[in-house]
């Protein structure tokens, strides 16, 4: 007779109900993260188009707002490994379908967002709070800017000192908009009865 052990999980994980590393790695955690990532891909269709028209996709702003929101949400709900699944499926599909010329770099930048959510969870325990969402956005923006500077210097050979206004604009947008979206999303999901506290 086959015996299976079922772990009990509370949601969201970043509230430190269980260890968020590796997070919820049962079938529900994996499947939920896959579907959240697909929702992100669907939403990206709207965001990436705007980024391509404005800056040729070199400085994603609306795409980044969507990715901050949904990768942060996935990581907060299910922990690091499902967060990384949410993060990595988007570049995988993006690269396979050729929807963005810099999609291969999203493997790194999206993973950094999941890591930022985990670090924020360590700093602030209550994940369903605006304070947490702001800490996550600031941390993710800093990490992403640090990742984009080498990309622009070594890959695109761009003069980084001339890109500072762009980084500032991108940073301002990604620090102030996603926290409200994540907070709103978490509140809605909570009131819809998906939290298992």
């Amino acid at each position, binding site marked *: 007779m086959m015996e299976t052990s079922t772990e009990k999980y509370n949601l969201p994980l970043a509230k430190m109900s269980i260890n968020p590393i590796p997070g919820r790695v049962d079938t529900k955690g994996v499947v939920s993260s896959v579907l959240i990532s697909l929702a992100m891909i669907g939403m990206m269709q709207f965001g990436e188009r705007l980024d391509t028209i404005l800056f040729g996709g070199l400085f994603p702003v609306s795409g980044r707002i969507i990715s901050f929101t949904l990768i942060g949400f996935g990581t907060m709900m299910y922990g690091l490994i499902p967060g990384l699944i949410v993060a990595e499926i988007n570049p995988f*599909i993006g690269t396979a379908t050729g929807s963005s010329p810099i999609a291969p770099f999203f493997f790194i930048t999206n993973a950094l967002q999941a890591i930022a959510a985990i670090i924020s969870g360590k700093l602030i325990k209550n994940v369903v709070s605006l304070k947490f969402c702001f800490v996550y956005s600031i941390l993710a923006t800093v990490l992403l800017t640090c990742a984009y500077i080498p990309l622009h210097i070594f890959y695109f050979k761009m003069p980084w000192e001339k890109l500072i206004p762009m980084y500032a604009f991108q940073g301002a947008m990604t620090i102030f908009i996603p926290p409200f979206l994540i907070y709103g999303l978490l509140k809605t999901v909570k009131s819809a009865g998906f939290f298992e506290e």
Partner: protein
Amino acid sequence: MASYAVSVRDGRGSSLTEKHPVTIAICCLAMICAAFATVDITAYLVMLGMLAVAVLVGKIPKANIVKIIGLVIPLCFFITLIQTLSQGGPDIASYMIGSYAIHFSYAGVVLGAAITLRVLILAITMTTFFALVSPPRLTRALYDLGMPFKYAYAFTLALHFLPLIINEISTINNAQKCRGYDIDRCNFIVKSIKIIPLMIPLIIMCLRRASSIALAMDLKAFGSITNRTFYLELKPASVGEKLTAGLFVTGSLLFIIRSILY
């Protein structure tokens, strides 16, 4: 996107798609490293020629490549413009706007063209890889490399559900239209802001659907047996494949050494 999922499911085959995924991955990585190591336009043209052969032999849908080129154009225009305005050296043109002089540098145009080719090589190489290695083969290769099946399968699962989610977005969009919230009539700037009423029902729908899918998978004992068996068997890489991968790696190393020395 949904068409990619359908084409993968239909399984368009060629002689290249039967090669071992790890061999293809090594060749693609070597190509990317070589592209990173140089800004020589001639070298880039040779690499593009090799990719063109791979695209033809691998029977990769031309629409994918055309789509990539279409996406790369605005990006490269933006990069070339910045390079042209910021690089020094002789000018190809200069204009006065009021009292401010704008110089278009020749070196900037050449560098912009090189970066354009570099971006194209990276984008086409990655697309070629995913076109040649179908998700089930990739899952199998990742499993053989030691990744737990549950995570390796996530990519295949994503492709199975992609058309479903795209349909779901369309359904939600139509439902919102019935309520007088028509996102399709907005311009592209407003559209990107107005996606919130689409996002929230979509996420709720996804979480609800995830519960039933996970339950169905658990009832079929998904992931309960550690040593899996597979319908799909990967043939080990032949000597020729190993030799080709070795040649790609050697070529890439030569490019890297050359970039360090000169």
